[in-house]
């Protein structure tokens, strides 16, 4: 859990965004290469490595989804290797209808409604995800399942948006 180490916090999924930002700023003051401009070369190199790790860590941890992916990966559950092409069974019917709409390649109120519907589903998935954070250690399989479902929905929303911007 390098990212949590370099931030100086215990590995956990429940994080307050503002608190995380303050931690990041505090650690930046300690590790940024600017602080080592007059130090020996070896220290400069170490600062460069640590501060780039810190920046990567903050970028990942401030986003709840990326944070969950990282957490699961460190726990040995790599979600990227899981099939994401697979339609979550409960969405089968709706996805089928959506694909028909997208293939017809026209907007209209039906596609508009589908956009609303899937954006709502995405928000719900995000809320559900965060509801699992406090007890993350005991919810690893549920988190993984939810992440895959969320990723599938996010891809659909992206496709719909792409359709609208064309």
């Amino acid at each position, binding site marked *: 859990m390098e990212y949590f*180490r370099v931030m100086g916090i215990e590995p956990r999924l429940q994080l307050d965004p503002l608190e995380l930002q303050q931690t990041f700023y505090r650690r930046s003051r300690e590790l940024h290469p*600017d602080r*080592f401009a007059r*130090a020996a070369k070896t220290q400069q190199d170490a600062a*460069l490595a640590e*501060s780039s790790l810190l*920046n990567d860590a903050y970028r990942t941890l401030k986003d709840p989804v990326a944070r969950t992916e990282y957490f699961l990966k460190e726990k040995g559950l790599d979600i990227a290797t899981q099939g994401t092409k697979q339609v979550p069974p409960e969405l089968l019917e709706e996805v089928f209808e959506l694909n028909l709409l997208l293939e017809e390649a026209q907007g209209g109120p039906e596609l508009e409604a589908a956009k609303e519907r899937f954006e709502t589903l995405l928000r719900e998935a995000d809320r559900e995800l965060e509801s699992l954070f406090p007890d993350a250690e005991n919810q690893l399989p549920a988190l993984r399942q939810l992440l895959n479902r969320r990723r599938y929905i996010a891809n659909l929303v992206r496709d719909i948006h792409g359709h609208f911007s064309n």
Partner: protein
Amino acid sequence: MGTFQIDFGDSPKERIIGIDLGTTNSLAAFQDLTGPEIIPTAEGGRIVPSVVSVGEDGAVLAGQAAKDQLKQRPRETVYSAKRFMGKGPDDIREELAFLPFSLASTPASAENNIIRLQVGPLAMTAPEISAHILAELKRNAEAYFGEPVTKAVVTVPAYFNDAQRQATKDAGRIAGLEVLRLVNEPTAAALAYGLDKRNQGVIAVYDLGGGTFDISILRIQDGIFEVLATNGDTHLGGDDIDKLLLEIALEDIASEWGFSVREDASAVETIRQAVIAAKEQLSFVPETQIDVDYQGRKYQRHLDRGLFDKLIAPVIERTVAPCRQCLKDAGLAPEQIDEVVLVGGSTRIPYVRKVVQQLFQAIPHTELNPDEVVALGAAVQAGILAGDVADTLLLDVTPLSLGIETMGGVVSKLIHRNSTIPASATEQFTTAVDGQTNVLIHVLQGERELVKDCRSLARFDLKGIPPMQAGLARIEVKFLIDANGILNVSAKDLRSGLEHSVEVKPSYGLTDEQVEAMILASIENAERDVRERQVREARVEADRILAAVEKARNSDAWLALDEAQQSAVQQAINELLLAYHGEDHLVIHAHMEKLDEATRSLAESMMNTAVASALKGTKI
């Protein structure tokens, strides 16, 4: 938790200056006890024009002295060299059609796409030209502080790519300056503004300079300047407006005078300076005229703000899309921007201010001189590095995504744009065929999906892989963008755990060997350049003295001198004029002193007349 003991050693603290290396003008500043201050030039000014001029013998002038040569010797004088930094021949072909410069017939190296401009007898790369401007700023700083200055923070447009940044660093090395940090111009401006202003808030910096446009959005909190997003166009600025006006004037002139002056570089430069003067006036008055007087021929054209605004609207419109994208990347709506800061000379134009105000729905800040604010910010960053500015820290981002070429000419992104720097990514590589001993990695910058639409940065060759079955080698490559926004690549053989060597072939840029050669050449030429400079300075001084004597000769005091005194003065003037056209500044100085001696009685006489007339006017 990793913490370091900071070891500063026993080395005494050396001064670090801040430099704004601009397209049109450059400035140097330093962090004083009370805040950042501009370092004056030798002539007592503040700005060093980014112009370099080469004499017939190859002696180089930079700054105001070079700018003074522009009209008379346009083919031997070069400006806006920043536009060529990190560029290849294909990038600038279009550009060259509008500028009086030509490419040297022999490219420095076809392999790494370096271009050289023919400036008088010299073929110079853009970093070499910039190095002369940096050296001028360095000399000014050394004269001001009375001690050597070898360390600097130099600013670059935020949207500069890796090659352009590297070229700027190279220019510093050639000039004998260790560039401790490259800082993005809009961020530097925020530093200059932010220090004594607000403790918290989100600000947008709109920076429209001579040749480049940047937009950056930052969150400021308790001394941390966190850049949220940046965008821009490294080919958009006041130069483009000049080009529009110049086109109009050239067409007018062709029809009025009955012939085109396009091929006459001296005429074009005269007209260019006239349209720039008109452009600058329109920022302060509602109407003006373009006024050209060239070899007895005159051209005048009335120009008002209404027409000017219409003309430049398409140019200024090009800044809008980058601003919108930047807001989007920062995840902010325009009304969430607390303050807007304007930077760059082109933001003096009222129409630009109007566009910015509409875009961000806020009245932009203009308290600091837009020409100086970037240099002042560079000085603040120098203060941060020196440990003099303790509470401030800048967290900047990389403007462009970094990726590697994969199968089918597709770019696989490793570090996304607007990532806080330093930023890194690691990737594992292996061999594709049995016995393969090297792997070539092509690194690119840009947002597009295909290799052909991105900017090639460099090719890295992992050499010396022991021959083995395909797919067995495991080399981990670390891509690291440092705090300057410059890519560093290192590789590790995961089987042996040893560092793996990487050979770098920059796509657009000088190799280390080329830079070393230029450093040597600049040291060799420095002596001659200094001599040339001393002669020029002596001539300026002589001009001043000759003008003063001429004025005195037309006064009553002259008549008070006897004939012998008068002829002694005349003799001294003639001798100074002879020395003036020679190439030895010591001789010029000697004759200035002689003239000074010869005019002593004249000066006394003038003083007496002045006192006499002053007394006459006084009623006791």
